[in-house]
């Protein structure tokens, strides 16, 4: 193809052909440098969208109430206080129509404990090791929190940059918007898939990358801003968004009746429904109870009423009182995880999450296929990428098997880590096996693993209909993965 033909074909595109090629070069470098991390974060994030469903799948016998009375809440809080040290903050999440089930989290400097609350107010300890592992993997890759979050944030920026450069380097964005040619050369097939997924899901993927990057980088951003403006005092930055704690007074004082507080909250915002209670310093004179309430059309709770230990209202704010920044801050996490609208939203996020995983994987495959087409194949990298692209879902399935088989053993992370290392090391060592063969075998292993996981879950945990749906999906997915793929005439 001559340059003049290229120019004619790219007429109307704001960048010159040379610039487009340079941007595409940078797109490739960035994609390759971060591919494995982005893929892992996208894969774990796609599954993390279904955290509420996975928690129920892991512990189907945990109570899931549609509504709960104030008396039962009082009982649950009293039970939690008996088993936690003084000064622990308690977070109670109330059931909604979209998300049934009441939960209680106790959080302190050296403690984090979660329960679900049954209809009588009794506490049932949460035992969802795989979901907990998955969320921690997505948020900080199981690294020390600050470093892990920074790495995830950096991967978010790299993904965002790849999305920007991918669009800039795509002069045929409209002409090829619907082309999906399968079965031809491997490179063109993957390029079609990569470009179609990248373009049509672009707004969604930009939102996910941007919010994810901000969530990951927030500690660093606040730290640098505090150094610049407040001599490193990050508390001054956080104080702009967080209510300051009441003055210390450790004298004993009973917690006010939640029935009265909930009634007062509803009186102040009749169209809002109480969603979460935060109880700080319970049993002391400086106690504080914060009740946040949701409205159906709002992304996050924006009605907040704060009570002191005597049950007096010390602060009451509603959507009209909040500045845009506070509203945006509250919505970032919800927009990122898709936990705001029940199952339909989670399914949509799940599908586009899978699209993002395929987008990442196909980007690497295009590079590998291009190298092979030009006679500069890199078999080691072909094997390694197969061990990541197919090996990570397999490692996650093995981790889930461990969680189901022995929920209390605390070995989910270890199993995932060992499986990941073995898969990568094995792929590197098996130099006589083609990358495509490794990919094929790992796909079959994943199919077997999915079926094994579903069978084990049904046999050991429960035949609960809602949780059983995930088992059905695992069985169907396993069968689909095991189906022979249509052979390509050429690679």
């Amino acid at each position, binding site marked *: *193809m001559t340059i003049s033909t290229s120019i004619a074909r790219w007429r109307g595109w704001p960048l010159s052909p040379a*610039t487009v*090629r*340079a*941007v595409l*070069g*940078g*797109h*490739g470098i960035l994609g390759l440098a971060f591919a494995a991390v982005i893929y892992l974060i996208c894969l774990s994030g796609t599954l993390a969208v279904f955290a509420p469903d996975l928690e129920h799948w892991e512990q189907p016998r945990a109570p899931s109430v549609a509504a709960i009375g104030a008396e039962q809440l009082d009982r649950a809080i009293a039970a939690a206080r008996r088993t936690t040290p003084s000064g622990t903050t308690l977070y109670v999440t109330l059931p909604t129509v979209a998300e049934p089930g009441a939960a209680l989290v106790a959080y302190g400097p050296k403690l984090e404990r979660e329960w679900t609350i049954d209809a009588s107010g009794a506490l049932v300890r949460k035992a969802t090791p795989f979901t907990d592992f998955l969320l921690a993997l997505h948020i900080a890759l199981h690294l020390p929190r600050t470093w892990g979050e920074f790495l995830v944030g*950096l991967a978010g*920026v*790299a993904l*965002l*940059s790849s999305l*920007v*450069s991918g669009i800039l*380097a795509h*002069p045929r964005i409209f002409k090829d*918007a*619907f082309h*999906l040619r399968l*079965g*031809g*050369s491997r*490179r*063109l097939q993957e*390029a079609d898939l990569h470009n*179609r997924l990248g373009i*049509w899901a*672009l*707004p*969604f993927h930009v*939102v996910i990358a941007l919010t994810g*990057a*901000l969530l990951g*980088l927030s500690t660093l951003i606040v730290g640098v801003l505090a150094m*610049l*403006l407040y001599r490193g005092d990050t508390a001054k930055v956080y104080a*702009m968004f967080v209510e300051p704690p009441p003055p210390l007074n450790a004298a004993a004082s009973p917690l006010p009746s939640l029935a009265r507080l909930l009634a007062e909250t509803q009186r102040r915002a009749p169209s809002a429904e109480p969603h979460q209670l935060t109880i700080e310093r319970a049993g002391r004179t400086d106690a504080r109870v914060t009740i946040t309430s949701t409205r*159906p*059309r*709002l*992304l996050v709770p924006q009605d907040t009423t704060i009570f002191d230990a005597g049950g007096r209202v010390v602060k009451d704010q509603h959507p009209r009182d909040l*500045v*845009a*920044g*506070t509203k*945006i*801050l509250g919505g970032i996490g919800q*927009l990122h995880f898709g936990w705001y*609208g*029940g199952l*339909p*939203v989670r399914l*949509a*996020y799940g599908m*586009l999450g899978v*699209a993002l995983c395929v987008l990442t994987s196909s980007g690497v495959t295009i590079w590998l296929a291009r190298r092979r087409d030009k006679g500069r194949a890199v078999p080691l990298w072909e094997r390694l990428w197969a061990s990541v692209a197919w090996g990570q879902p397999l490692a996650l399935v093995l981790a889930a098997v461990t969680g189901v088989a022995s929920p209390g053993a605390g070995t989910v992370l270890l199993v995932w880590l060992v499986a990941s290392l073995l898969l990568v090391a094995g792929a590197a060592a098996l130099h006589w096996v083609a990358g495509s063969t490794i990919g094929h075998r790992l796909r079959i292993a994943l199919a077997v693993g999915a079926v094994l996981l579903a069978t084990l879950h049904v046999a050991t945990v429960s035949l609960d209909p809602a949780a059983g749906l995930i088992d059905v999906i695992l069985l169907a997915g396993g069968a689909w993965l095991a189906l022979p793929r249509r052979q390509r*005439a*050429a690679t």
Partner: protein
Amino acid sequence: MIAGAAGLGLVGGLGGATLLRTVWTERARSSRWRVPVGWLVLTAAIVSDAVWVGPIKGLALGVAMVAIGALLVVARGRVRRVARPGRETSLAPEPFEGPSRGAWRGWVKALLAGPLGMTAAMALAFCYATWAPGDPRTRLIVAGLLVPFFWAVAMTWTLADHRLLRSVGMLVGTTVAGFALAAVKGLG
């Protein structure tokens, strides 16, 4: 309500993308009117969701469902071919793969796209946080969102630009000027 809005977004995505596909794939000049109508259908589906279930909730749901609808149209129009080795070419651009000009350039580019890009992005964002009008909390949150965006743009630019000195000058200059201006003004 959410399920209904999701369905509306999906139908809008399917309808709008089908209209666009007719023009862009078949290139029929007589049906050019379908392009604006296609975009209008896609936009209307997102706006309808926003009106139905709430501005942010609906917008996010609409964007996701329209994307799924459009991708279903792409999948429905897939073609399966038999490869002819050596005869398939792409009209898409190929990345620049010039001769290697030393590993040090790679390290400098990594430095530019990474730490220097980050500091320049923060400097610009903090400038916004300190100098823009409005409530300081809103300015701060918008600045927080601007950091990854500016950093991503800096990454894209520095990895594509072969003139390293220009990139270094631009990023260092932006960092120094941005942090200085932000420190002078403060959050107020």
